[in-house]
């Protein structure tokens, strides 16, 4: 349990009650990630990778095991403290971008800052800067349905980064995109990582996983190290 880990998971198990049967989604998962790392978790659907991401993202708590994020033991935190941790440390990106349809791009990006209690002026300034960074300076006041899939995912990335989190958690970030757009998103991820931000990406697509510097495999809730792919 060294302190320079960004996070450290030890013997994490997650069980769900499916009717009368207990289903073991995660089985004794051990995973550590260093600050600034670019890791991808590769696994088929139903392998437990989304559950893993939820636990890493402090949306869910493990049934047993130990999870330490930035030196804090996650299972001891209240739901309010977990929300606080998410707000400060974690940026989420979901498969279908998940923008609120009634808000413009810039209002969507501002959303995490509202919950963090940032002043409107500062909020607008930071959201504008972030949208410019992902190349959407001319689309700020468009509604999600006026944007292409790739543009929507860029807005989602801007939203995930606007709170200046230490880790970016991406669940199938290219799942709904065509290959060309997906490639652009991956390039953006690389730039973000180059700036020192930790990225953990979950995917079932080997080609996408290959963009990460380290890949771990998950099958039926069991995690195995897959080695370094940065030179692949």
């Amino acid at each position, binding site marked *: 349990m060294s302190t320079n880990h960004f996070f450290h998971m030890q013997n994490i198990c997650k069980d769900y009650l499916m009717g009368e049967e207990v289903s073991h989604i995660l089985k004794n998962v051990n995973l550590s990630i260093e600050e600034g790392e670019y890791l991808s978790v590769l696994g088929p659907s139903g392998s437990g990778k989304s559950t893993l991401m*939820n636990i890493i*993202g402090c*949306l*869910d708590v493990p049934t047993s095991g130990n999870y330490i994020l930035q030196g804090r033991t996650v299972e001891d935190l209240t*739901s*309010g403290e977990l*929300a*606080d941790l*998410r*707000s*400060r440390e974690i940026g*989420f990106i*979901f*498969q*279908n971008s*998940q923008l*609120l349809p*009634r*808000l413009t791009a810039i209002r969507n990006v501002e*959303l*995490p800052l*509202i*919950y*963090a*209690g*940032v*002043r*409107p002026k500062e909020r607008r300034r930071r959201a504008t800067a972030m949208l410019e960074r992902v190349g959407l300076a001319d689309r700020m006041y468009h509604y999600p349905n006026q944007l292409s899939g790739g543009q929507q995912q860029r807005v989602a990335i801007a*939203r995930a980064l606007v*709170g200046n989190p230490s880790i970016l958690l991406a669940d199938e970030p290219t799942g709904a995109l065509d290959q060309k757009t997906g490639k652009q998103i991956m390039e953006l991820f690389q730039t973000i990582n180059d700036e020192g931000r930790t990225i953990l990406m979950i995917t079932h697509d080997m080609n996408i996983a290959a963009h990460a510097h380290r890949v771990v495999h998950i099958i039926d809730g069991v995690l195995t190290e897959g080695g370094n792919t940065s030179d692949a």
Partner: protein
Amino acid sequence: MLKSIRSTFIMIHECISMSISNIWGNKVRSFLTVLGILIGVTAVIALITTVSGVSSSITSSFTSLGAGTISVSISGSDLKSGLTRDDLKTLTALTEVDGITPTVSLRAQVTCSGETQSNVNVSGKSSYYFHLNEDIVTHGRELNFVDEDNSSFVCLVSDEMVSTFFFAVNPVGATLYINGTPFTVVGRFKEDSSSGIASIFSGKANIFIPYTTALKMNNSSLVTSFTVYMSEGVTSSQASSALEAALDPMFSYEEDTYTITTMDSIEDTMETMTGMMATLLGGIASIALVVGGIGIMNMMLTTVTERTVEIGLKKALGAKPWQIQVQFLIESFMLSLIGGIAGVMLGLLLSLVFSEVIGSTFVVSGGAIVLGVGFSAAVGILFGWAPARKASRLNPIDALRSM
């Protein structure tokens, strides 16, 4: 601490604008949801405003008619069944009393120039009555002290009598037979429009004769019922006690020989009645508010279910449970507040129309507005509480899983 207050303020401000856009985004559904509250508040406001308008009209017409008067009715003792003329003079002489009009009426058969009408309402009047109602005599003269003292056989006739007996002929100077006794017509009076309520009690009189004459025709010399007009600046309780002090010796201090009714007590009764009516109607209308509140609750529960993804997403983005709860509470609060404000306006409009139609005064009751808006806001918070709590407790995973 200061920072958390500021961020709470920022959050609530955002919640208000977000909930407005959500309400606006579902225009039809929001309208239907709000309709229950709107109808409830409209009913409360319209009923309370109308009832208070009607009761203030009734009160003001009572005041204009009966303020400063006291009714006395004599049941009498075995020895003395009513008041003599001298007794009335004694009472009139009291400083608290400005004047007295005895109530003596009879139903009579009236004959004039060959035509007969039976069951005519004949009323005995004192000269003081004409002092009070100066404009009532349109032709001829009033009945005066001399008529009263002599029990003269003179009379005044109403416009209605004129058209019955004296069509196109000046009635003054003519002779009229009341129960066979000849009376000289000395004048003509118009129906007193202001005595609307008095005529409910005494019936509308078509012929006025001196009250002393009327007593004679009733084969009596005693007055059993009269109205006392108080002097200016005298309260009705002062006047009643002065009257009691004067009446008691007249009936040898026997109990239960007379009843004094002040207008104050009638007004009090009226006020209690209209107050009860307003409370009752308001109570019925608030049932509509409760039903409206259930409508809001239903809509909010549906909304929470529909927006699980949004809730999960917001939680993932760092929203705390209480922030989610506040957002939904504000939304239901805004919904019912909109309904409440619209209801107040519609209710006032309706009662304005009512008051025009029934001719009562339109009184905007501040209390009713506060009640309407306050009640609807309370309904929003009360019925929004459970759905908002449900939303705040939603597990972010379950919420996001439906993506």
